[in-house]
C-alpha cells in the first residue's frame, strides 16, 4: 500500500493540480510564503546567499501535499475493490508519506545548514522539532470537518470542541513564530537564547500537537467510508 500511495502521490504532484486544489486551502500556502519569506530573509543576517529560505521548503511541501491529498480518498477509490482494512492501510500509508517526506526534507536542509556552519546542534534540534510538529499537524489530515459521525437523521454531527480549534491556532502560530525565531538567532548568539527557543518548542507546539493527534484515529475511521467524507448537512453538537 505504501508503494501504491507513493506512486499515486508522485503521479498527481503537479502544479496544475495544486492550483486546482485551492478550495482545500492551497491559498493558505501562498499566504504562508508571503508572510514568512521576508521575515526569514530579514532575520538571518549571516545568510548572504539567502540559503536560509530552504528551511521553509519542507513546510511548503507539507502544505501542498496536505491540500493536494486530503485524508478523504477520491470517490473512485471508494468504488474500487478494496476492503475497509485495505482502505485504512492506504490512508495510513498516505499519512506517513505526507508527514515523512517533509521531515526527511527538513533533516536534509539541516545537514546543509550544519555543514555550512549556519546553525549549531541545539538550533538544528529545535528546527527539526518545529518542522516535525508542523508536518504532523498538516500531514495527519486531522480536521474538524472530517471528525464527525453521520447520525440517524442523515446529518453529520460534528463535536463542537473548542480545545480542538484552539489547538489548530496554537500549532500554526507557534510554528510560524518559532521558525522566524530560529532563523533570527545567529550561531554566535549566547547558548541560553537557543536553549530558550528549544524549551518553548518543547513546551508549546510539541504537547499541543500530541493532544491534537488524539483526534487522528477518529479522522481515519471517518475517511474509510465515503458517506462520512462527502458534503452533507452539518450540525454542531456540544
Amino acid at each position, binding site marked *: 500500500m505504501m508503494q*501504491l500511495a507513493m506512486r*499515486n502521490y508522485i*503521479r*498527481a504532484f*503537479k502544479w*496544475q*493540480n495544486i492550483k*486546482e486544489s485551492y478550495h482545500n486551502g492551497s491559498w493558505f500556502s501562498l499566504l504562508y510564503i508571503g508572510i514568512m519569506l521576508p521575515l526569514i530573509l530579514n532575520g538571518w543576517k549571516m545568510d548572504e546567499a539567502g540559503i536560509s529560505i530552504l528551511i521553509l521548503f519542507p513546510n511548503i511541501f507539507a502544505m501542498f501535499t496536505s491540500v493536494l491529498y486530503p485524508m478523504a480518498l*477520491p*470517490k*473512485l*477509490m*471508494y*468504488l*474500487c*475493490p*478494496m*476492503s*475497509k482494512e*485495505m482502505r485504512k492501510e492506504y490512508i495510513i500509508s498516505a499519512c506517513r508519506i505526507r508527514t515523512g517526506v517533509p521531515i526527511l526534507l527538513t533533516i536534509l536542509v539541516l545537514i546543509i545548514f550544519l555543514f555550512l556552519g549556519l546553525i549549531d546542534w541545539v538550533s538544528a534540534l529545535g528546527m527539526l522539532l518545529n518542522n516535525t510538529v508542523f508536518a504532523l499537524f498538516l500531514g495527519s489530515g486531522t480536521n474538524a470537518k472530517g471528525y464527525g459521525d453521520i447520525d*440517524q*437523521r*442523515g*446529518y453529520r454531527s460534528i463535536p463542537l470542541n473548542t480545545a480542538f480549534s484552539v489547538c489548530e491556532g496554537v500549532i500554526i502560530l507557534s510554528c510560524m513564530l518559532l521558525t522566524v525565531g530560529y532563523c533570527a538567532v545567529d550561531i554566535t548568539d549566547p547558548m541560553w537564547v537557543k536553549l530558550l527557543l528549544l524549551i518553548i518548542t518543547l513546551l508549546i507546539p510539541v504537547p499541543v500537537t500530541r493532544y491534537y493527534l488524539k483526534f487522528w484515529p477518529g479522522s481515519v475511521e471517518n475517511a474509510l*467510508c*465515503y*458517506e462520512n467524507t462527502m458534503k*452533507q*448537512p452539518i450540525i454542531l453538537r456540544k
Partner: protein
Amino acid sequence: MLLEIKDVCKRLGNFKLKNISLQLPAGYILGLIGPNGAGKTSLIHLILGLYEPNEGEILIDGLSYTDHEVDIREKLGTVLLEDLFVNGLTLKENASRFGEFYKNYSEEILLKYLNRFHLDADRKFKQLSKGEKLKFQFAFALSHDAKLLILDEPTGNFDPTFRAEFFEVLKEFIADGQRSIILSTHLTEDLDRIADYICYLEKGETIFAGDIESLRDKYRLVVGEEYKIKLLRKDDIIYLEKGEFTNRALVINRPSRLYDALKVTVPTIEELMYFMTKRGKKS
C-alpha cells in the same frame, strides 16, 4: 438474482428513501426513472455501497457489502455524472492507476473501447468534454469484466450518433445472459426500446418496480371527451388532463374494462412519468 434490494430505507438530511424493494435477474436492463430529486442517485449510491442503508439489505449476486465488499466491487462497473478521474493524468494513466485494484482489468479491452469511442488514450482527462469524460468512464467500466453496470444519467451528454453506439454496447454487454445493467435516465424513449425492467421513483418512494410488460399492462392512456373519461371508476383515473380540443387521462387498466368510445393506447414511459408526476393535482 444479480441485484436484490429488500425494504431499504435511507435518510439523507430532510430526504428519505422509503422501503425500496427491487429485483434484477442476470441478463436484463433495469431503467431507473423519476423526476429530479426523486432519489435515483441516492439509490444508485446505496447500490454502489457508498451509502449504508438505515434499514433493509442490498445483495449483489447474493453477496452483501458487510462480508464481501471486495468481491462485490469487482463485479460493479460505474458511470456517474461527475468527474471521477484525475484531471492532470492521461486516460491511459488514469485507467492504470485505478485499474490495478481490479483483478480482471485489461488495458487491451480499455484501448479497444477507447478506440471504438474515438478517444485518444494519451489525452489528459481535463481536456475532454463532459460527454467524452463519460465515454471514458464507460470504457473503464467495461474494461474490468464487471457483471453489473450502473449508469447514472449518462445519455443526456451523448451526441445522437454515440447514443446509438452506446445502446449497441449495452446490448452486447448483456448478450451472454450473465450480466445486467441499471440505467438511470430522463430520456425515457431510450428505455422504451431497451429496458426490460423499470423502477419508477418519486419523492423517495417506489411507485412501480417490475418488468416493463407488467407496467404496460397496468396502465392505459385514454383520449376522448371528458364526460366519457369520467364514466370510468374515479379511483382508476390517475390524472385527467383537460385540453382545448381533447382530453387525455392515464388510467389503471382493468382486464374486463370496456373503454366506450375512447381512444386507448399503451402509454410510453415518458407519458407514464408525465401523468404520474401530475397525479393528485388539478388539471
